[in-house]
C-alpha cells in the first residue's frame, strides 16, 4: 500500500513561481506600494481633524501655532508662565530620581538575595516594599508623599518643595520596579559563575559585587532604560502637588487663555525627551539579540 507520506515519485516538475497576485509588490513596485499605503494610512489619521464636526475646533484649540509659541515662551506682561521655564524642574527631577532608583533598586534586590540571618527582617521588609509599591498607582504615591510628609511636621523632611516630594515619591515607586528587574538579571546569571567565584574564596558580598551584579546589570540594561523612560514621563504627575513643571505650566496656560495648545507643547516636550531614549533602547536590544544569536 502506498502511504500519503511517501515521496512523490511522479515525473511532474513542480511549479515554484508565486501566484500572480503576490507578484504585484516585488522590486521597485514594492517601494511604490509602501509609499502609497503609508500616505493613505497617515492621511486617514490626519483627516479625522478635517472631516469630523469638531475638527476645526480641535485644530484651533490644540494645534494653534501662535498659541503654542506663546505657551512655550510665556508672557510676563500678563503673568503667563513659560513652559520652557518648567523644563528644568522635570529634568532635574528625573535625573536625581534615576540615580536614587538605581541605588535603591540594587540595594533591595541585593537584600532579597542575602542569606545572613541578621538580614531576615530586612528581607521581609524588602519583599513587602516591592509588593506594596508596585501595586499602588504612582499618582497616589505622589499624593501620599506630597501631602503626608509635610503633615508629619518632622523637621526638614516636612519643609521641602513639591518637586523634592515628587522625587521621593517617584524614587519609592520606581525602585520597586527596578529592584524586580535587577533580581531577574541576577537570576539570569548562570549558577557556575557563583560556584567559580566562591571556589576562589571570594566572600558572598565580593561575589555579588564583582561577579554577579556586573553581569546581571548588563543583561537588564534595556528593560532598565524602559523603566527610566516611564519615569521621565511620570515627572508630570508631580504637577498635582503644585510643582511648576512642564505639565503644570501648560495647564496654567490653558486655564488662563482658554486654549489647550499648551498641552500639545507639553506633550511634544515629553516626546523630545523620550523618543531618543526609546530609539536607543531599541538599538541596544537589537544589538543584544544579535550578540546572543551569534554566541549560540
Amino acid at each position, binding site marked *: 500500500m502506498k502511504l500519503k507520506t511517501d515521496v512523490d515519485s511522479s515525473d511532474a516538475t513542480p511549479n515554484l513561481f508565486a501566484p500572480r497576485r503576490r507578484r504585484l509588490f516585488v522590486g521597485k513596485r514594492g517601494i511604490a506600494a509602501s509609499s502609497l499605503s503609508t500616505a493613505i494610512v497617515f492621511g486617514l489619521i490626519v483627516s479625522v481633524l478635517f472631516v469630523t464636526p469638531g475638527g476645526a475646533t480641535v485644530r484651533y484649540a490644540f494645534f494653534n501655532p501662535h498659541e503654542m509659541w506663546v505657551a512655550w515662551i510665556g508672557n510676563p506682561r500678563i503673568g503667563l508662565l513659560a513652559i520652557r521655564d518648567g523644563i528644568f524642574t522635570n529634568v532635574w527631577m528625573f535625573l536625581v530620581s534615576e540615580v536614587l532608583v538605581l541605588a535603591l533598586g540594587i540595594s533591595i534586590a541585593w537584600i532579597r538575595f542575602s542569606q545572613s540571618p541578621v538580614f531576615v527582617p530586612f528581607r521581609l521588609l524588602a519583599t513587602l516594599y516591592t509588593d506594596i509599591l508596585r501595586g499602588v498607582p504612582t499618582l497616589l504615591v505622589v499624593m501620599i508623599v506630597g501631602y503626608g510628609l509635610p503633615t508629619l511636621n518632622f523637621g526638614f523632611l516636612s519643609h521641602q518643595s513639591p518637586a523634592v516630594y515628587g522625587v521621593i515619591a517617584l524614587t519609592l515607586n520606581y525602585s520597586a520596579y527596578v529592584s524586580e528587574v535587577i533580581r531577574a538579571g541576577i537570576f539570569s546569571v*548562570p549558577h*557556575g*559563575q557563583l560556584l567559580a567565584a566562591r*571556589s*576562589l*574564596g571570594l566572600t558572598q558580598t565580593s561575589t555579588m559585587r*564583582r561577579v554577579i551584579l556586573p553581569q546581571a546589570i548588563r543583561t537588564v540594561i534595556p528593560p532598565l532604560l524602559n523603566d527610566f523612560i516611564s519615569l521621565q514621563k511620570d515627572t508630570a504627575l508631580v504637577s498635582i502637588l503644585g510643582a511648576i513643571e512642564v505639565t503644570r505650566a501648560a495647564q496654567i496656560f490653558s486655564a488662563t487663555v482658554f486654549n489647550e495648545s499648551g498641552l500639545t507643547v507639553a506633550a511634544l516636550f515629553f516626546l523630545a525627551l523620550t523618543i531618543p531614549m526609546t530609539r536607543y533602547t531599541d538599538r541596544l536590544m537589537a544589538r543584544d539579540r544579535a550578540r546572543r544569536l551569534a554566541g549560540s
Partner: protein
Amino acid sequence: MSEVVLELDGVVKRFADNEVLRGVSLKLHRHEVACLIGASGSGKSTLLRCANLLETIDGGSISLFGQPLGDRRIDPDLVRRHMGMVFQSFNLFPHLSVIDNILLGPVYALKRKRADAYDEALALLDRIGLRDRADEYPERLSGGQQQRVAIVRSLAMQPSLLLLDEVTSALDPTLVGEVLDLLTDLAHNGTTMLIATHEMNFARDVAQQIVFLEKGVLVEQGAPDQVFNHPREEATRKFLERVR
C-alpha cells in the same frame, strides 16, 4: 608517605532521598595526584563539591590539614582559598578580561595589591603561552585556551591542592591534549591534585592513586597498575571493559 592534605572519612551526601555518596573515605597526600574514575552519576563531581564546601555533607567528615571542615568555627571562604577548583564548563567570568579573571581571587579574596599580583598573573599566562591574550575577553578564546586560563586562575591563589571536575569533558577532542599536557606538567611539578576524569590513559600516567566510584560507593582504590591491570572487584573490571 608525606603529610595528609585532604581526608574524607565516611562521607555521605543525599539530594532529597537520593543518596549520592554512601560513606566514601580517602586520603590525599602532599604532592600526590589521585584520579576519581567512574560512570557519570557515580558521585565524582559531588565528592569534589563537598570537599570544596560548595555542598554540605549529611554524614562523615572531611578535613584539610587535619582540621575538620564540619567544625562551626571553620570559615568556608578561607578553606576555599586553599583549594583551587576547576569546572567542566570553565566558568570564566565573561565580563572580565583574561588577566582580570586571574586577578580576581588574589585581589578581592586575598586582598593583595593589584600591581603585585599582576606580574605573577602574567607569568602564569606565559606558562600556558597566552600572555599576548591577557587583555582579551574569554569568549574570544578557544575552549582549550579557556580551560587552561581557568586552571591558572585557580593556581593564582597558590592553593594547597587542586580539585578538577572533568575538565576536558566539554572540550573538542582536538583540544583535550593541550589541557591534559598542562595537568601532566603540574603533576610533575608536585601539585597536589584530586581529578575526576574519564581519560583513563591520562589517569594511568599521572596518578599515584586511582579511586573507582560506582553509585556513590567507593568500590576500589589503589595504585594505577593495580586498579587498571589487576582489578580486584568485578564492578571495576566491568567498568574498565566498557570504557576501553
